[in-house]
């Protein structure tokens, strides 16, 4: 049975709070960035690393922290609060893999954790590789 209820549904729709969501995402996402910069500076100035090494280690540290907080059941609350501010940075990527791995645990190591881990992250990897391939080609052809 298809009947048109559009009019009634429309006048009862909740509007998403775009401004609040945008502002919180900006601040929280920014704070994660600032924290990453702090880590990087720490590795360069205190541990005397090269900039390349420090940045790689900073990325890995953020991923580790995200994975741990996901396991402790904290990261999903941050995600609910901050939206894109929490899932756009690399910490969000780590959260998507860790949460899928946790979810797959009961289905075994190979298919549960191994394959399940990429359920959400898989598309990010695929489109990340495709995008870098295209941009790399453009750069090679036009900006050499």
């Amino acid at each position, binding site marked *: 049975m298809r009947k048109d209820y559009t009019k009634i549904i429309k006048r009862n729709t909740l509007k998403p709070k775009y401004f609040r969501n945008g502002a919180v995402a900006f601040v929280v996402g920014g704070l994660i960035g600032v924290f990453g910069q702090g880590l990087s500076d720490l590795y360069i100035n205190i541990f005397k690393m090269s900039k390349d090494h420090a940045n790689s280690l900073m990325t890995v540290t953020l991923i580790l922290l995200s994975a741990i907080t996901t396991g402790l059941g904290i990261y999903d609350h941050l995600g609910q609060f901050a939206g894109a501010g929490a*899932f756009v940075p690399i910490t969000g990527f780590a959260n998507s893999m860790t949460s899928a791995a946790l979810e797959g645990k009961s289905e075994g190591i190979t298919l549960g954790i191994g394959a399940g881990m990429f359920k959400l992250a898989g598309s990010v990897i695929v489109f990340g590789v495709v995008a870098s391939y295209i941009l790399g080609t453009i750069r090679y052809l036009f900006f050499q």
Partner: protein
Amino acid sequence: MKKSTYKFNNVYIKGTGTAVGPLEKEGPLGAYFDRDYQDNYCEEKNWESAEQRLLNDAITIAIASSGLKNEAIDLAISGDLINQNAVSNYVMRDFPFPLLGMYGACSTAMLTLLTAALFIESKKFHHIVAATSSHNSTAERQFRYPTEYGGPKPETATFTVTGAGSAVVSSDVTNIRVSSATIGRVIDANQNDPNDMGTAMAPAASDTIIRHLRDLHLTPNYYDMIITGDLSKVGSKVLLDIMAEEGFDISKFHEDCGKIIYSESQPVFSGGSGCACCAVVTYGYIKQLLETRKLKRVLVVATGALHNPVMLLQKESIPAIAHAVSLEINEV
């Protein structure tokens, strides 16, 4: 249009059983549930086993409270949200009576009850177990994202109730009578947001309620309460609006299981949903209100969003259904 409302003369609720998770126990109706668990694993190794434990508890408690033995039960009619109706099928390994598995998404609570009532009314059966279950994490895993995933949910989202409810439907006279039932039609209101199922289901609920009233020539105030399954805050508003437009004012005695099972301070967005939402509220809370005669006649309208995650990705919409069962005090 042909009628699809059926009246019953000798169908009664002989026993009920409910089992819930911690969040439901902490909610305003916590005291009405028979059994509860400290965490969502319910002393089991994984969530699927936890849901089995809840359903097993609900059925066992319902049979015990009816005073019957397993041997007296003719049939179980049970369903859940998990692929292949897995939870019901696996749980019924532990019971000696036959099973009819049913799927009606979150409308399963009343789908199983009304089917049991029709069977009992046929006089071929004496005692039937009607049961259903849902678990927040098994449902999230199947229909949405991993539990610990950080993607935000909108305010319109609902929270799947962790629990199970069961009733022993019988031809033995008791103080709660199943008086009539209306079978739902599939209504598609062209909605496609799995995070706003209340809106998608409200038109189905209104369709069933209106057909029920028309088939039986009743006005809404015949009932002390018309309670929908899991329209939540958002869907309830849509339902009342559609009903008003159709000339039925039910705002004074409309309730929604999804709205009353949790309190405002619990992190459940727009309210509760899932098969267990309607089941535990009906077999816990509503049953109690009828037994203590605070309510005399209740129409329970279980709503179900019949979407399939694959077909949603293929740009299909969310069809919905609602089944209604009327419960009355048996005036002796």
